[in-house]
């Protein structure tokens, strides 16, 4: 039996010092529940993604608290941690459990509060996703990971670094443009008319990446309702189906050698998802990719098979990935424009994909979208999840 997504919800991304992690999940969960038009008692389990609640809010063991908060006492509730891919891992596990027949209907989501934690704690918390012994000895940060990748990309593909920086800046310009029109985005109403020069000239974080090459720190929550086809058809005539999923893993950045710009685990995860969905990259109408940094979007599109290695930078600068291009990428603003509440990011990509496939994403709708793909990366190519969704 097929598995469907029947409801989606997300908080506004941004700063929520007045909400706990549990509150952020609950807000998104009830929006998804109403969207699905089902009753609370229909939800049989909760799959919850959170990355660093211990460090930002002093809270671990969150799954029981989120279940209790939404009024679902005593159901199985599990926390998943795969860094930035936490709720995508949770989503894939939920899909597999429903497909296997364990449940008819479950909730998946995530929450994170990195903006309220402040830059120093936030940067240290994010850095827990790199190798804790050898990479932390050197003080490697997340912008650092992609800064290393960017310089190597320029070298390997024989692109002058300054030229690559300009092409990378187009990712930021595009994603901020789309984030600025998305009411749920952290930068809604801001930075909609950035120029390449603005990105190049903003504050240097880890050379060659500037502040505007980076996604922001974000507080937020997201949730989706996953059900089997039978239940889905009872409550909503025409659901969005999960066509395929893939997941793979990788070790420390330095162990990957020259593959640091090839994201091999992502290539494997994407191929797994394409095989299961019985489609090829050409069949995908738009993608939500993990643009934690500008160069990350470029590397992702190549590893997923949409462009040859070393060429997505040119395609991006030429507008191929814009809303009216051949392959719209991150029409909701992506992590850069919409924000990146780590544990909530994966299911927020599912939120956008579902809204787009239902033709409900009116502020930046992809025309005639039938098949969408999401891509979430945890760590320095440590946890990769790809999901393909579609409508009949």
């Amino acid at each position: 039996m097929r598995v469907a997504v029947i409801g989606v919800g997300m908080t506004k991304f941004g700063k929520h010092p007045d909400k706990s992690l549990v509150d952020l999940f609950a807000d998104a969960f009830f929006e998804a529940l109403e969207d699905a038009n089902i009753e609370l008692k229909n939800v049989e389990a909760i799959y919850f993604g959170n990355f660093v609640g211990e460090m930002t809010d002093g809270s671990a063991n969150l799954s029981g608290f989120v279940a209790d908060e939404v009024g679902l006492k005593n159901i199985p509730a599990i926390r998943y941690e795969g860094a930035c891919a936490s709720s995508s891992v949770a989503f894939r596990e939920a899909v597999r459990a429903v497909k296997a027949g364990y449940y008819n209907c479950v909730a998946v989501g995530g929450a994170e509060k990195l903006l309220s934690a402040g830059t120093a704690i936030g940067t240290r918390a994010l850095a827990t996703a790199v190798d804790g012994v050898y990479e932390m000895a050197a003080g490697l940060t997340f912008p650092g990971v992609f800064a290393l990748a960017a310089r190597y990309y320029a070298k390997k593909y024989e692109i002058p670094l300054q030229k690559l920086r300009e092409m990378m800046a187009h990712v930021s310009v595009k994603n901020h443009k789309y984030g600025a029109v998305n009411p749920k985005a952290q930068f809604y109403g801001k930075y909609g008319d950035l120029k390449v020069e603005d990105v190049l000239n903003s504050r240097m974080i880890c050379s060659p990446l500037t502040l505007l090459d980076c996604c922001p720190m974000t507080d937020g929550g997201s949730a989706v309702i996953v059900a089997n086809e039978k239940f889905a058809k009872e409550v909503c005539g025409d659901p969005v189906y999960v066509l395929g999923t893939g997941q793979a893993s990788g070790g420390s950045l330095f162990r990957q050698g020259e593959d640091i710009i090839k994201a091999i685990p992502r290539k494997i995860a994407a191929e797994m998802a394409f095989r299961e969905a019985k489609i090829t990259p050409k069949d995908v109408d738009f993608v939500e990719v993990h643009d934690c940094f500008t160069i990350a979007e470029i590397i992702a599109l190549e590893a997923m098979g949409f462009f040859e290695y070393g060429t997505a930078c040119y395609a991006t600068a030429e507008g191929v990935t814009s809303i009216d291009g051949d392959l719209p990428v991150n029409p909701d603003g992506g992590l850069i424009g919409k924000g990146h509440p780590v544990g909530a990011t994966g299911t927020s990509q599912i939120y956008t994909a579902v809204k787009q496939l239902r033709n409900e994403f009116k502020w930046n709708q992809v025309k005639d979208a039938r098949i969408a793909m999401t891509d979430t990366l945890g760590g320095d190519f440590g946890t990769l999840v790809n999901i393909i969704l579609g409508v009949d």
Partner: protein
Amino acid sequence: MFMEFFNSLLEGKLLGMKCKDCGSYTCPPKHTCNSCSSRNLEKTILSGKGTVKTYTVTYVAPMGYEKEVPYVVALVELDEGPWIIGRLDVDPKIAEENDLTDKRVSIFAKEMPSEMFYPMKEKRIVPYFRIEG
């Protein structure tokens, strides 16, 4: 084996593993060969020489590392094959104004303060790369 790796590096020795099955090197040591996943490994001391593949000057540091900025993090390809992470022992300005990729380097170690979450609580031993010539 990370403690042994760092303490050896302080004495000027770069500890790695040689695979008795495929012949390739893994550094720092791991339970399995980084090339073929074999457990048939033997400890060995590597040359400590290599080539800079990529680097970044870090201006925004995590909590516990703020006093060290700006610092230069680099990936170096050792002559025996493995890539290794550490810091370039160079003025960050020089790293920004010049292309230091492909430079030949040799490895050594510096003791730095540990921080609340780092696994070695007494001190942090940081691999450093000195540019040769």
